[in-house]
């Protein structure tokens, strides 16, 4: 299990855990970031990532990417 920030471009994985207990976690869930969903790293700029989850493409920054484990 490792955070999304450590994944390579093109890498695919199932979400194992999302840390934290705040409003942002809810928002992540609305966007499809929930345990067991599959994510793909589409692109990255520094530690900011573009990921594919379900059929949507989401841009997230490193602070959030660190909290999502695959």
């Amino acid at each position, binding site marked *: 299990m490792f955070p999304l920030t450590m994944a390579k471009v093109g890498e695919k994985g199932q979400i194992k855990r999302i840390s934290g207990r705040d409003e942002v976690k*809810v*928002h992540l869930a609305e*966007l*499809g970031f929930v345990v067991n969903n599959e994510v793909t790293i589409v*692109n990255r700029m520094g530690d900011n990532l573009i990921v594919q989850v379900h059929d*949507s*493409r989401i841009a997230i*920054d490193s602070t*959030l990417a660190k909290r999502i484990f695959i």
Partner: protein
Amino acid sequence: MIIGLAGNPNSGKTTLFNDLTGSSQYTGNWPGVTVEKKDGKLKGHPDVTIQDLPGIYSLSPYTLEEVVSRQYLVHEQPDAIINIVDGTNIERNLYLTTQLLELGLPTLIAINMVDVLEKTGVTIDTKKLEKELGCKVMTISALKGKGTKEAAKEAIRLAKAHEVGKRPEIFSGDLLKAIQEIEGKLDGDMKRWFAIKLFERDNKIIQDNNLNPDLKTVVEPIINKIEDEEDDDAESIITSARYEYITNLTRQCVVASKKQTKSLSDKIDSIVTNRYLALPIFAIIIFIMYYISVTTVGTWMTDWTNDVLFGEIVPNALTALCSTLGVADWMQHLLIDGVVGGVGTVLGFVPQILLIFVFLSILEDTGYMARIAFIMDRLFRKFGLSGKSFIPILIGSGCGVPGIMAARTIEDEADRRMTIMLCTFIPCAAKTEIIAMISSVFFHGSAWIATSMYFLSLAVIVLSGIALKKTRFFAGESAPFVMELPAYHLPQAKTVLMRVLERGKHFIVKAGTIIFAVSVITWFLMSYTPTLQYIDPESAAVSKSILRYIGEFIAPIFAPLGFGNWEGGVSVLIALSAKELAASTVVVLAGKAGVATLFTTMGAFSYMILNLFNPPCIAAMGTIWREMGSRFWAIFAISYQLVLGYVLSFITYQLGSFLFYGASLGIGQIVAIGLVLGIIYMVVRPGYREPVGELVNA
């Protein structure tokens, strides 16, 4: 009859809304908040209002949009809901659907983008979906206008019959029992909805709906039991249950073809968000946009409007009309010099501004704008701003008013306020007119002046961001950046045009109201002496006008900035109402002697700086006031701009004349150096931290 239109952002909701209502739209704000409210009459059904809800991902209270939408759905209860679902992203979209169905209102699900689905070989079994979700499901293509009328008709039928479907059971096992137990403690409508919200510990729901606050303590043990069982927090448990249900549902109802090739969006994204190419591509796109809308096509159109339309055609026609009607001389002057002169100058900008907005709307509609926010985020975060702050700045380069309003998409309040304060520093179309005048008269039309002003304004935004972030008001981390990037698609003419009109409207309204009034007043003050004798404002006699006395009264304020003459003072004052008027006022006041006689080169430069960083215009100040939603913040923002404009102009003039024009080192220079040091201190000092309670030794 009211039909609410609900759906995710980027699901095609706006396109559907435009298709259903045509031009009969009314835009306003939801009460008390700066979230846009749009409604319109359904085409061919004057008795049916389509209420467009903000694009939302769920009915939880994470964003203002979500709060507004659920308040509306729960309290005002539209007669029916059309839930637009993006068929190409059905799972995520159905997440909202499961929540809407809990409200117990007649609901129709419109699956959008079926044409795209057909192409990619995905089929959706709508009959099965209908059976499972217990409500009517139809397919549409909002972009092509297919199936939209039928969907609207069906929604009307549902509303008339008040046909509420059978709600699907999303939960099971102990969770279901817990929810039902909470339902049992409630009375009234929408029991299921309230029960889930109570389970999620959504405290806002208790406040907003006058529920008995004791309920919270009553349901707490029920929630705790489930949380312990599942070893997760209540909100996540509900979310997971919803997704689990949806995954099962789509497995039964959605059949995807086997081949999943890399989509076009993927290909485009791998280039435009590439870590090396992203910034150069962005720079080229912006350059092309400005080259066309400001330098070439825009200027031709503006020159024609100014020189031909409002320079010859309208004045000549008006003169002819006046002489036929025998209108008094002073009235003729007022109409032609005052009104046509003032309002005409402003309307001359309209083509340029509309062109900028056309480009910006295309960038938005294609999906590239969201990528810009992402690309800029890394850079902006270093200055304490979010990438989302960049879009208001970009739009602000056309006109500050829609720029300020574009800050609405920023969730974090502190970030949003700061963006509102700073986004108008970027030269808008009107300010570029001042730059153009100063650089052509004093700097041989050097293009470097305009370019350096853009960089200077960006530097001021960035340094202001850093300095403000260190104050108590804006301290704290920016909200984390998370944003959906819509799939790329070709811009749609209708959507682009509607957005251009919407944004351009403010500008034209401004021309018709504020600028009209200011032009008339200025004309009067210029054309009459204090004893109310008419003088020709275009002759030397203008120095006997009322305006001159006003100018002399305020001129000392501007003396330290290098232009202590009455003409400069008056034009700064007038420019506060609209920057478009600064250049034209100076030109008129200078008369035949020419602008070069009014300022020294350094004074002219300082005059330009003052106007660039002062508040842009009355319309923008009004917008700041409205968008801040608080008197304190509005005054704070406008004062900041006034003070900063003055300070920067002061420093420029005092140090500039010392360094480049051999002025001696005097008090002015020393104060300027002090101010520079003060600014450096504000930028580099350690930031404010929340005070932490200190341990006291007993």
